[in-house]
């Protein structure tokens, strides 16, 4: 069975890119455009892995991850943070919120896929 990935990003460009890359790699992909949208889609999507941006309107990536972790169904789903910033603070904040890992934009396709493959069962 193919794995399902939920990608949360407020940029249409990044969303489309993620979708292209992930679908080409054989994943099924659901998209959400901010944290609220992501949380709303989480149950229906039941993803095997989530990729989320940090800077988003309404609810940012940290809030989204915390919200996702608070739901027992998704407490253990791997969540990757997509970020343009790579400072240690940011990683710590992401981890505190419950992020599984991080990918720095712009991402390298092969690298992204290999990271995902490491994280999905």
């Amino acid at each position, binding site marked *: 069975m193919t794995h399902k990935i939920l990608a949360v990003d407020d940029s*249409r460009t990044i969303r*489309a890119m993620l979708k292209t890359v992930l679908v080409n790699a054989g994943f099924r992909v659901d998209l959400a455009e901010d*944290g609220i949208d992501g949380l709303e889609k989480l149950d229906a999507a039941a993803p095997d892995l989530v990729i989320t941006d940090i800077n988003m309107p309404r*609810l940012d990536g940290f809030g989204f991850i915390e919200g996702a972790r608070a739901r027992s169904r998704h407490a253990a789903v791997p*969540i990757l943070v997509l970020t343009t910033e790579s400072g240690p603070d940011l990683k710590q904040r992401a981890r505190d919120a419950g992020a599984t890992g991080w990918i720095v934009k*712009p991402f390298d396709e092969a*690298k992204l896929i290999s990271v995902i493959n490491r994280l999905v069962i």
Partner: protein
Amino acid sequence: MNDLRDLFFQECDDLVESLTSGLGDLESGAHDAETINAMFRAVHSIKGGAGAFGLDRLIAFAHAFENVLDDIRSDKLQVNETNLPLLFTAGDHLSDLVEAARGECEIENDMGASILSDLKLLSQSVGGGALMDDAPEPEFEPLALDMGFDLPDLGTPQAAASGYAITFAASAELYATGHDPALLFRALGALGEVHASADVDAVPELGDSDWRTPVLRWTLTLTPDDGIDEAALREVFEFVDGLCTLEITAPSAPPDLPDLLPLADPPDTPAPAAADAPVKPSPPPSDPPAAARPSKSDSARTATIRVDLQRVDRLINLVGELVISEAMLRQSMSELPHSASSKTVEEAMGQLKQLSGVIQESVMAIRAQPVRSLFQRMSRTVRETAREAGKQARLVTLGDATEVDKTVTERLVEPLTHMIRNAVDHGLETPEARRAAGKDERGTVTLEAAHRSGRVVITLRDDGAGIDRRKVRQVAEQKGLVRPEDDLTEADIDNLLFRPGFSTASEVSNLSGRGVGMDVVRSEIQALGGRVTLQSMPGQGTQVTISLPLTLAVLEGMVVSVAGESLVVPTLALRETLQPGQARIDAFCDDDRVLTLGHELIPIVDLGLALGYRATPADLDSLSLLLIEGDSGRRTALAVDAIVDQREVVIKGLEQNYRPIPGIAAATILGDGKIALIVDTDQMISRPGDGPSPAALLPDPTRIAHHA
């Protein structure tokens, strides 16, 4: 990838608009924290996308801009009159960079460099830019994955047979962040041959323990495949750094003891790198409600979808067909014997008509978009023109939520830009002159949009000096457009500015009136089915009014018949209709005939002759006349065989499958399914009869009135 690129630039348009809108709010003081946040996100998203496409200049500039916005966001920097212009300039430049990247062309570096350094100075002045690396380039190196920790310089090539010894114990947090040791081991397995064993000594009696605290310790050996080094091995543990106890022992020279490596306790073993982070106590599951962080301004956002414009146009076309079919059906019904149509059928027909009308309106509304983005572009034009012309000017926009067909807003950009430049350059006085006249040194240009009786009216006002009619008349006389003895009203003089050949930029730029290429502006507006008029009050300013149809797809027209063909004359230009025998017609040489209406003599165009439907002039006494008027105020009477009725028609272009036809604007389909051509009234006015005379040589109506 090109699709993605297009998507990125499309998104950039929205992001730039959102940035511009935020800047506008900053200027007017109508901003809150979310305004800055949204601006920051816009620039940030542009940077992010630009990174994906390797648009280095855009990245670098967006980065510097983003830093400044971040300083404002974090209250390190206050927006004030000194730095606001820089923010505007930066916004404009960002937009230029986006355009340059879209067109894959270079733009001059000088200006960008100075703006960039200004932005950096501004950040530095408040010690800002700290949140993000100040040098953006390294951050955007193509190696995209951050390693998470500093890798030790291992540099020891691994022999194929050598094995690593790994001990690993997970913390509770490791599980809480979605990790699974089994996956880590699987990933290790991809690097070589792995043996794993669990050390169960630490597992307490059941019931004795906090189930949330993981207690298993794993011992693994990895015999790596060729080319796998310790960096690859550590990468597997990249995300769990700090979430586990991890030791990796590189194989020693005799590579025959991997299975026998001792299970050392973490504190006792020298661990390479920072892999010895203690197991953290499991944090209590934090449980913030999902909506704890929503920001206020975005919460009322309406849901939208993006639809390919072609799909919308197809829908609009189909609905046009529906309306036509409905009309055809109604016509067939009316031709049936009376008894056949019952009251029920009539009611159903009425409902069908109403429904198709509503559907048509709703579909048209899809293409409608607010003029806001158009107006925002103009604010930049005002700033730039004012700077170049040494004027002080501000733009006030009203009614920018007014919706207009997308094509109309797109095609208004050029003419409106032209008029705005005129208003600032020629309309507004210099600050000194304004002060002397007792006005605010800073002039105001007002751009207003409103719906009025089924049309969109856009007005452009300035509070400048108004048109210098004496000078305009003087120029027009020099150019032979009017004669000194012509009796012209003030409005006549103002409208001389729209006459082709009135002016070229170089000759009129010293006029404190306007007129730079206004004939071009007018023809652009006319091409959209619009009208443009101009009013001026000396000393108080000038107002240009543009009236446009709500949509380009439907037109109100008079159906007429000419030589057996049906034609449609748009009612926009129609002033009056005259039945046969109602008019006084006088003949001139070469079959020229003129309608006398009051004191006015109006040229008559025999439509059948002009369009080649008949070879010889018809007897005008048996024809009906349609009096049409162009924006110039010039009138012409169109002679037709009969006037059928007035109705709304759906416009069908001719160029798609055929080509433009002189004298014809488009086609439509009538209720009986027949095609009727829509007359281009403007061409009829500028080319009376089938004479080849170019517009410029035609007699001026004022001259006809007095000298014919």
